[in-house]
């Protein structure tokens, strides 16, 4: 956090130094209530069953000519669980554009890939599993990026000077994808520890109906394995151990009218072993469903992942996934999403249902359910099997007038 503090001061100084012309700050604030399912008789005790929390995200940006600075800070205060109350600088960066180059320095979040469920090629950012145990929410990563683009595509080179470790909810808290012990200090394969300088490269191009991405990463893996240690106290602890790895990835999407065909593949080399992963998917979009103005988009994907440890959500190794999204296209921009993943070898299934609608000009209501209705004890998903939940959130958007 000391580093983050210094970076914050630096960008704050830049915000003023650029003599900004176009600037704005927006605040998103919300309250959430969550209720977890009943415990099964054999389940370990849990600290709480209902959880109330308050969250806020402030995002500001200023631009002046070829330069811009932007910041996004997230905080959550939770009623229970010391680890649930947390904050993160999602973004804090300076961007300079000098055609055909773009240079950015600071903290940022970068997403690579095309599929909806498994994100095989996405490796730059650490996951914020306190916010989302399935890894869809990422924490900010310090980086220096140079991008150049032209008719031939777009090429980005990333320098990642500082590794960020994964944070875990406390022992006894629900939704904790980690061994049922305390978490010890992080261990690293690299002697440089979290100061190891990671590097990455990405080329992407859109050519007619085809979007192509090629990527390469070399550095510390974002996915730890756990080593059990017994400290002087005698109570075993799990130490997250971060290996060095290199990974080459490819992602493709072919979009033809209402159909999209997707592929992501990766080859990861870590701990002297090479392991592959791929996912394929097909998406079909329909407008004006059943004579209404709603759009329906359905997705069917399959993932095969031999990497070890498995990247988040940590249980998609040989799984079929199905999902749909209905966008109401109404004045309230209502949206309903459903996703289900099903393990092909073990008898496990996880569901997710989300609904969102605008209830007033600057207010939006979200309801979400996550259900683990069948979990094989041999499936890594077993860590979450007692943590089905229902949540309700109300979010208010405070906007500063834009440009």
């Amino acid at each position: 956090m000391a580093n983050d503090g210094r970076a914050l001061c630096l960008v704050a100084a830049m915000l003023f130094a650029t003599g900004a012309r176009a600037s704005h700050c927006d605040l998103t604030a919300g309250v959430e209530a969550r209720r977890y399912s009943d415990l099964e008789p054999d389940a370990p005790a849990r600290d709480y069953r209902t959880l109330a929390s308050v969250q806020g995200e402030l995002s500001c940006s200023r631009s002046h000519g070829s330069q811009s600075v932007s910041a996004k800070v997230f905080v959550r205060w939770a009623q229970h669980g010391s680890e649930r109350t947390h904050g993160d600088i999602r973004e804090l960066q300076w961007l300079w554009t000098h055609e055909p180059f773009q240079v950015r320095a600071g903290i940022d979040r970068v997403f690579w890939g095309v599929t909806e469920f498994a994100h095989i090629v996405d490796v730059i950012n650490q996951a914020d599993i306190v916010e989302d145990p399935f890894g869809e929410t990422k924490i900010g990563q310090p980086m220096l990026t140079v991008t150049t683009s032209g008719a031939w595509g777009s090429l980005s080179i990333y320098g990642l000077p500082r590794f960020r470790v994964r944070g875990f909810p406390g022992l006894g808290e629900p939704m904790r994808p980690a061994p049922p012990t305390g978490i010890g200090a992080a261990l690293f394969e690299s002697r440089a520890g979290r100061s190891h300088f990671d590097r990455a490269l990405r080329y992407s191009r859109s050519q007619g109906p085809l979007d192509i991405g090629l990527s390469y990463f070399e550095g510390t893996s974002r996915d730890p394995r756990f080593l059990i240690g017994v400290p002087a106290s005698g109570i075993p602890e799990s130490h997250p151990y971060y290996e060095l790895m290199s990974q080459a990835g490819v992602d493709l999407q072919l979009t033809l009218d209402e159909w999209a065909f997707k592929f992501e593949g990766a080859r990861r080399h870590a701990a002297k072993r090479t392991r592959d992963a791929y996912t394929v998917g097909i998406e079909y979009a329909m407008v004006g469903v059943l004579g209404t103005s709603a759009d329906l988009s359905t997705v069917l994907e399959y993932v095969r992942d031999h990497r070890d440890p498995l990247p988040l959500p940590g249980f998609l190794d040989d799984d079929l996934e199905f999902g749909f999204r209905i966008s109401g296209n109404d004045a309230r921009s209502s949206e309903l999403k459903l996703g289900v993943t099903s393990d092909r070898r073990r008898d496990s299934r996880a569901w997710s249902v989300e609904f969102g609608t605008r209830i007033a000009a600057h207010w939006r209501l979200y309801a979400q359910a996550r259900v683990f209705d069948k979990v094989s004890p041999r499936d890594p998903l077993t860590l979450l099997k007692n943590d089905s939940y229902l949540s309700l959130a109300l979010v208010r958007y405070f906007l500063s007038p834009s440009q």
Partner: protein
Amino acid sequence: MRSLYWLTLALSAGATLASADRSDLRGLEIATQADKRDEGFGDTTATLTMTLYSSRGETTQRRMRARILETESGDKRLIIFDEPGDVRGTAVLTHTHLDGSDDQWVYLPALERVKRIATAGKTGPFMGSEFAYEDLTAQEVARYTYRHLKDEPCSGGQCFVIERHPVNEGSGYSRQTVWIDEAEFRVWRVEYFDRKGSLLKVLTFDDYQLFNERYWRARSMKMENVQTGKHTVIEWSGYRFGNGLTDAAFDPARLADSR
């Protein structure tokens, strides 16, 4: 360039052309002329305020900014949403192609992800409004076949009335009737017919303003759905030409930086 493309297309359909009567040629001539008048605008930026009126008179507002770049192979358009708050920062990028097979990407700030989206979506409503995506994309000449119906007075003076049939099967309409004024070739009214052939929507343009002594832009567009009684009004403001926009600003790889 566009007219050349059209010419090639027309020649390749020589057999059809041979049997075409004078009204088809006249219709095409009018559409081509209207398109030519708008050539060379380079780029445009503007702000849109969109108001949705329900059949009970309730209103909802959206605000967004548009950036448009003219290119030889079709216009590139970027729309950035400012309001309501839950969609702020969402950006939709469209690369228009002359034949109607547009490429479209959307940046979703909540996911911080750029997604290529299926073009079938263009027949769907735009942001819950009475406008469909396809009503707001560039009306390239080659996207329709034409017929000149008649000439009659309209809100813009004396108008040509032409009928156009979409070439692309993906359109949500069977045909459209368009009123174009004879003096400046500005569109004043469009009637949209659904795929069953019934009148679905009526679009009226108002408050035209001249820019750079050449380009006419309507500051008000009203779309009425005659089947549901709902309507949507788009007010355009802050039109600016010659902003020096380049292809780079319309690159899907940079969509996440659009602000």
